[in-house]
């Protein structure tokens, strides 16, 4: 029953966000699809298709006996052309989202009938599922034409997509694991790289450098990182902040794969963005609201904006495959550098939670304990944004038994022991937020280790006769 409650809570509340944030995600998602990934056009691919060759994968393809005539693909290409643009500007968003996603999924089924699936399904599945979220209620033409004020948005599609993404990565890790990826005497990443280099002739970017790289430790780390990262993606699916951290790792991973093996997974970037939607800052939302309000006040300006978008969109559709590739590579490079920056310089952002923006945090600590006082000083030095306020346990409780744990109070909710410690370090500057990864350790084990330290803290680190007195400049941080 407790598990059911937890699951239900996760389904409906894990990615709580506003209709404005969802609207901004819709624009970003479709923009990336259109301008970096490209609206799928099937008729030009089907013309080159091996004649008479229809060997579809199980499930979808079994409903068809052959590939439909070229006219079908030409018609669906036009529908997709209109559908993607309407989803971008938010005109009949739900209808066009569902139609565009369905056509893409079905038509890719025909493309994959030579037997190779390119795994872009998750992108179309995101478009399909998010059409049910109400992402067209704001920053859209729908919001001008229809009354969308009282329509409730749905965030369960985001939870479903996080489960899908976690599972997708898990499948890759599991298959590697059972096929002996870690059991070989040498690196499987190296073996796969060489196969790609020589057989698939993927020798661009940094491939030549890695071909000559015989640094064994690098390749071994590659093996272990791949498995831990891919399987770990499913493990963290119920921890939203860790899940977001894994999406950043994924971008880093895809960037490396691109540089080493010239395999591009850029289309997933737009999906990863979804899980960051609840963290879109209020200031950006207000700024976007302001721009949209100005547009709606002046119909001529609105129409000319749509017209300009349409022209840019049309021009974009005429670009050749080479231009697409340049756009994609720029996107990968940008995302790769951004993820590196966040992971190394700003890990505090990596582990952010949506509620962090509004809540007040009070750390209650044992005022006579040297270890606790040292920790408080440590937190103050690394809490540049002054997230935390402090109070001694002696001020709140008379019973000494209550002093065995540090307490973190967030908007009335209380965390203690190891959970409190990890929640505190999550918000510090520097690389300390990485300690939050220990949240994956089962709570009884974490708390057991915490209790050992807590019990011996006076013995190991000493105690004071009186509680810590804050310096004048820190006085406002103490309650």
């Amino acid at each position, binding site marked *: 029953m407790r598990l059911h409650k937890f699951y239900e809570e996760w*389904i409906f509340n894990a990615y709580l966000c506003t209709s404005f944030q969802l609207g901004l995600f819709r624009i970003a998602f479709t923009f990336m699809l259109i301008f970096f990934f490209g609206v799928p056009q099937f008729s030009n691919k089907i013309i080159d298709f091996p004649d008479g060759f229809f060997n579809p994968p199980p499930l979808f393809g079994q409903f068809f006996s052959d590939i439909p005539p070229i006219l079908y693909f030409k018609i669906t290409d036009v529908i997709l052309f209109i559908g993607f643009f309407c989803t971008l500007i938010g005109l009949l968003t739900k209808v066009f989202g569902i139609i565009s996603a369905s056509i893409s999924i079905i038509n890719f089924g025909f493309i994959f009938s*030579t037997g190779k699936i390119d795994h872009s399904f998750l992108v179309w599945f995101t478009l399909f599922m998010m059409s049910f979220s109400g992402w067209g209620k704001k920053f859209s033409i729908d919001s001008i034409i229809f009354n969308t004020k009282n329509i409730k948005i749905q965030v369960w599609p985001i939870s479903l997509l996080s489960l899908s993404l976690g599972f997708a990565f898990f499948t890759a890790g599991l298959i590697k694991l059972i096929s002996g990826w870690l059991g070989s005497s040498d690196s499987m990443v190296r073996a796969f790289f060489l196969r790609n280099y020589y*057989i698939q002739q993927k020798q661009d970017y940094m491939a030549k450098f890695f071909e000559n790289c015989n640094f064994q430790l690098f390749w071994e780390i590659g093996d272990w990182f791949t498995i831990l990262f891919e399987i770990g993606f499913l493990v963290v699916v119920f921890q939203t902040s860790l899940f977001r951290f894994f999406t950043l790792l994924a971008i880093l991973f895809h960037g490396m794969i691109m540089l080493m093996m010239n395999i591009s997974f850029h289309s997933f970037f737009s999906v990863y963005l979804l899980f960051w939607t609840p963290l879109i800052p209020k200031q950006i939302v207000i700024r976007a609201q302001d721009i949209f309000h100005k547009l709606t006040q002046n119909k001529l300006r609105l129409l000319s904006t749509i017209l300009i978008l349409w022209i840019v969109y049309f021009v974009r559709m005429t670009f050749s495959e080479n231009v697409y590739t340049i756009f994609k590579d720029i996107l990968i490079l940008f995302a790769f550098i951004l993820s590196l920056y966040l992971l190394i310089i700003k890990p505090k952002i990596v582990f952010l939670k949506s509620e962090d923006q509004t809540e007040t945090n009070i750390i209650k600590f044992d005022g006579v304990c040297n270890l606790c006082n040292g920790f408080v000083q440590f937190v103050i030095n690394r809490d540049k944004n002054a997230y935390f306020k402090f109070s001694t346990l002696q001020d709140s409780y008379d019973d000494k038994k209550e002093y065995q744990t540090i307490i973190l109070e967030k908007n009335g909710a209380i965390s203690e022991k190891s959970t409190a410690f990890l929640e505190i370090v999550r918000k510090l500057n520097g690389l300390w937020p990485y300690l939050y990864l220990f949240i994956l350790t089962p709570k009884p084990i974490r708390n057991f280790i915490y209790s050992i330290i807590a019990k011996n803290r006076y013995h190991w680190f000493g105690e004071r006769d009186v509680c810590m007195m804050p310096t004048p400049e820190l006085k406002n941080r103490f309650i």
Partner: protein
Amino acid sequence: MKSNRSKITLFYLFPLFLIGHLAYGLIVREPYPSLMMPAFSRIDNDGKEYKLTDFNLIVQVDSKMDTINLKNLAYPFSKIAISRAIDLVYFRKDSEKNYNSLQKKYYSIIKSFIGEKYYSKYIIAVRHPKMNENQKRQFTLWIKKRVSDKKNIYGFSVIIEKVLTTRDFKSGSIKRKEVINQVKI
């Protein structure tokens, strides 16, 4: 509340679907739509050398021989997709030889468990489907048309060699190269 119940039911059924389609994908063949990711794990690796199969395409006009790069021939399709098609059309009987040693072990266990008949019918026939004569003929014409377009030649034949290359693991240099099968079209 009622609609919430249906969503919760969906969330309980969805993982079952995911597990089912993973099991089917692992044992038989990856379905589509699929939420599986590529695993890139089909290579045997002893740390000293690794073996990979590839195709050589030799174009023969009268007595003159010339080669054509399969990657260029396949474009805009991926070389992997066309290699798989070539394998199915001309070298279908070799398909199981492409498995790595662990895959061979797993499939021999499955075969002994369900029997040769069911193994062939429900796994091999789906994993490596048999192309009919019309499909083979049309695919051959497609290959020849592509060669003709790329090389601007007519009245030629194409020899497709399935090559097993053994490379040194560290340096990547070729240690052995052997033609394990070939077909002339």
